[in-house]
């Protein structure tokens, strides 16, 4: 549930920061970046301590976010929604195949990594939860501080600056919050896709565009969606369970298509 809240929240932030309705830690490749960093840590450096996973995941998430944003900004018009999504999707695929390449030759760790990679909340024990809590807390504080700034960024950079906001600083702070949240969530559960995409859109339909309401609502909604997906996964595949990442993808993919097909894609 905490992971769902973190992912929903970070999706809402990323959509606000990039003014991009397609932004989501999964689509932008940030979750996979975090995953790759963790897998490399396990496979090559024999890192086993849970707390190191978190640092690695956040590092991977941050690097990927910077890379995708840089690639998406190349060319005319800067980081348009579509270019960012494409850059993210390409990066995401590349990162997950890299992850696979790292894991394949290592039969000893493959099993554990595989189930972690599809996304399973079963791995989240109480110890883990306590470990990630400070990171999620820091991310949450950054997110809530950013809510009003995101409201201004939504009006365009020039106007936001004209209203007395430091645009670059606001964007960096909010992004850092999002990276902490999705990095920590990935460290525990593996890369779970689509939660950060679907939840903020649903919340926006219900509550409107004010980030002061949107961010907390996305956190709650993300928690709800992940819980529901987990339960669904357990019921459908009884007596074993369907990994929660697969269930969210089943729900999320149609929503993604619906969003892309909607008209005013750039008008966020």
């Amino acid at each position: 549930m905490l992971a769902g809240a973190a992912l929903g929240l970070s999706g809402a932030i990323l959509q606000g920061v990039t003014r991009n309705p397609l932004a989501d830690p999964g689509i932008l490749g940030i979750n996979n970046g975090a995953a790759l960093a963790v897998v490399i840590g396990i496979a090559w450096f024999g890192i086993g301590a849970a707390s190191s996973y978190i640092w690695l995941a956040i590092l991977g998430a941050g690097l990927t976010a910077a890379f995708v944003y840089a690639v998406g900004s190349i060319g005319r018009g800067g980081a348009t929604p579509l270019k960012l999504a494409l850059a993210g999707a390409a990066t995401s695929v590349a990162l997950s195949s890299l992850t696979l390449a790292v894991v394949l030759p290592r039969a000893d760790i493959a099993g554990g990594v595989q189930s972690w990679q599809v996304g399973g909340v079963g791995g989240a024990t109480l110890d883990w939860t306590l470990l990630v809590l400070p990171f999620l807390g820091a991310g949450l504080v950054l997110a809530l501080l950013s809510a009003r700034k995101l409201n201004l960024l939504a009006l365009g950079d020039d106007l936001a600056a004209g209203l007395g906001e430091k645009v670059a600083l606001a964007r960096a702070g909010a992004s850092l919050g999002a990276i902490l949240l999705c990095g920590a969530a990935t460290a525990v559960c593996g890369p779970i896709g689509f939660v950060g995409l679907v939840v903020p859109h649903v919340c926006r339909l219900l509550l409107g565009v004010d980030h002061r309401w949107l961010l907390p609502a996305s956190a709650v909604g993300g928690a709800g969606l992940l819980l529901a997906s987990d339960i669904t996964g357990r019921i459908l595949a009884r007596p074993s369970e369907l990994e929660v990442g697969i269930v969210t993808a089943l729900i999320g993919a149609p929503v993604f298509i619906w969003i892309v097909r909607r008209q005013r894609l750039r008008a966020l």
Partner: protein
Amino acid sequence: MTINHRLQVQDLTAGYGDRTIIKGLGIDLLPGRISAIVGANACGKSTLLRVMARLLRPRGGQVALDGAAIHGMPTRALARVLGLLPQSPIAPEGITVADLVGRGRHPHHGLMSRWGPADDHAVATALEATRITDLADRTVDELSGGQRQRAWIAMALAQDTDLLLLDEPTTYLDVAHQIELLDLLCDLNARRGTTIVMVLHDLNLAARYADQLIALRAGRVHAQDSPDAVLTEATIAQVFGLSARVMRDPVSGRPMMLPIGRHRLAAE
């Protein structure tokens, strides 16, 4: 409002990347009056406005508010004195007019301060002045072009600044809405004494509505004076490379110009 802040541009040099667009430019804007910046395409009008709104850092010289460089001021404090309406601001999909106008109150709030009666009053006054009170609960997407531009002006009014910079506020408006908008700015100037500085393309509207015309040519001030002194056949030839006839506008008594092209000329 009785205090008028004085905005001056002193020996300003500015540009993007390795391109210098403005070279050694100086302007003294008349406090409490309306100034219009005119000039050919790519002469530096919008760049100048961006520097004056501290969106772009000058390479040399400065923009001074009451003698102090604006680029050294706390941006939020500056936003309580100097408002900006960029050329194409972005309205988030689904935002209501009241919410949009309310975001103009941002610079009047600190980290913790709450929305108060002063904010309600500012928003109500702004909606009333732009005659969109009855549209307050509509979303901005539903509005016509003229109504939408009035909503943006209302947002700038809610910011409650003594100086207001506008980048081509009449673009995309039909002639009736252009006049309506400029009349609105005149009202604002007359009632609150707001200093208005705008980039305008239409020379005749600029000459009619502005107290001071600033003609730019290749990044320098070619002339800054009353419309009578600036809108002359000689200046139009030098600034735009266009021959024109200038005569007295029978409606306003201000000068107006009629361009002379190569075709459609009545036999002399």
